[in-house]
């Protein structure tokens, strides 16, 4: 917290007439979930439900010799964003890889069900998760599925749910599916959004299938830039809390309908991508096939430069997040 104050002071001195945007200069990836959340919402506006003092931790972890967390790895509650009443959840990637267990999942499901009842302007999921918490196996699997149903219920009700992904652990597994059910997905270039992690794939099918230690490969396969180019991210932002905040504010009031027309367009996007993708599993040939100019240079470009390169394909414009 002291480092953050110092950063804000420094930005205030440097910025002359313009006060720094809230969260400016603060790395999303380096924050803990609670630090991220506190800096993201309007100052002091976060009111937590089932806080750590309630001690709703996992009853299952003790059996495996793993310490629990008082909030079971997720903070939920209400807040304001740019003055709009929102519900928020922030997953702690450092605790069990952000994995969803029984209590963690129920907190998310409860939050989403409450949103259906109370109708905030939006629900914001600050997602960082490996998916189902394997230490809770079956309970985690069912929990993730309940979160998914609850997100889809909000889609139907027209209450926007935004997934914000930028933590070091990315958003994988069942949580990756949940985030992709949301109205909007905001990704940083550090963020990853996928299903299975590279280690699991390498363990199953060998290092030639996926070399998990090849970071450049991992990021061009599952990272924010790739997802955004393909239409699987609404916005690509820098690793900066202010950037996430600005993008969230921009997309706050833009739900994506769950109707036949919208799903047909989404289907066309995904089917077209499948059909266009050259043989193999490398990103640059896919980007080129989608119409991205100078595809080989993509990994070297920053978010701003990349924004000029997203293909103007109708499919991505209409069917993308």
């Amino acid at each position, binding site marked *: 917290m002291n480092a953050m104050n110092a950063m804000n002071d420094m930005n205030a001195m440097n910025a002359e007439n313009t006060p720094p945007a809230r969260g400016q200069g603060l790395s999303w990836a380096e924050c803990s979930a609670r630090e991220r959340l506190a800096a993201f919402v309007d100052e002091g506006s976060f009111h937590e439900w089932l806080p750590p003092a309630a001690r709703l931790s996992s009853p299952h972890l003790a059996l495996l010799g793993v310490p629990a967390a008082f909030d079971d790895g997720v903070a939920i509650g209400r807040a304001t964003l740019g003055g709009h009443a929102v519900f928020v959840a922030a997953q702690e990637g450092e605790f069990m890889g952000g994995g969803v267990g029984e*209590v963690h999942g129920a907190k998310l499901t409860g939050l989403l069900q409450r949103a259906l009842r109370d109708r905030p302007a939006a629900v914001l999921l600050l997602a960082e998760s490996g998916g189902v918490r394997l230490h*809770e*196996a079956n309970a985690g699997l069912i929990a993730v599925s309940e979160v998914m149903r609850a997100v889809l219920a909000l889609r139907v009700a027209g209450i926007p749910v935004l997934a914000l992904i930028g933590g070091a652990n990315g958003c994988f597994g069942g949580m990756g599916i*949940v985030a992709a059910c949301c109205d909007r997905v905001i990704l940083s270039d550090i963020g990853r959004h996928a299903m299975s992690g590279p280690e699991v794939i390498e363990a199953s099918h060998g290092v030639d299938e996926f070399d998990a230690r090849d970071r450049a490969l991992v990021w061009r396969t599952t990272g924010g830039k790739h997802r955004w180019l393909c239409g699987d991210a609404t916005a690509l932002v820098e690793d900066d809390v202010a950037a996430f905040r600005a993008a969230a504010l921009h997309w706050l009031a833009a739900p994506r309908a769950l109707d036949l027309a919208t*799903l047909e367009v*989404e289907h066309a996007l995904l089917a077209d991508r499948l059909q266009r993708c050259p043989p193999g599993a490398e990103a640059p040939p*896919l980007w080129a096939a989608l119409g991205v100019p100078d595809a080989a240079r993509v990994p070297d470009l920053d978010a701003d430069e990349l924004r000029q390169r997203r293909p103007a394909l109708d499919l991505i414009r209409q069917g993308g997040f």
Partner: protein
Amino acid sequence: MLWQDLCTALFGAEHAVQADGDFICGEARLDGRPITVFGSTNHAAVGVELALRQARVVLDTVAAHPGRPLLLLVDTQGQALRRRDELLGIHRAMAHLGSCVELARRQGHPVLGLVYDQALSGGFITSGLIADACDALPEAEIRVMRIPAMARVTKIAEDRLQALSADNPVFAPGVGNYVAMGGVRRLWDAQAPGGLAQALRDALADLPLQDERARLGAERGGRRLAASVIDRVLAAP
């Protein structure tokens, strides 16, 4: 149980369900009422292609056959573990399938999942677990991950996981366990009067619109906390 034998038991010899690789699809009739049957076989690894094929069936049914029930037959080893599927966005394809099922539900189509062989992980999340309700045959196997892989990821010894799988509901793979936790609604008894066809009839007659699984898990005692945590969030000041 083989999907062919299952379909014959449910619908008699005259049904149009066919397999194309790991993908099952076709129309069948129960008491003269048409049903769209679709899903997977061969312990399918669900990749982008299979997810999209299933989504296509759901969209076509919504477009062309108002109110028609959808029966989702589940036999999967989970998501495909391939770099190409990750590149193409398997997470998105699965979310898309789930969204299509949600649409069908909201448009008045009963959607029933049935695990007739295996169901693992991501393959299960966007099939049985996204239907209005998911039933299972008693011999089905449902789990998150096989023990060797789980041991690698969690760094917990295989024999410890084996021991836990023997009697701990959270780890045990049996369907009875998933029933106790509310994840599976009920098991079908081929020996009961009317056999599997009657079980299907009963299943379709009583599909919930809301997600009842947390409540079921609490009632049945296999998953006690989830429902109370949800209730506490709803009531929190």
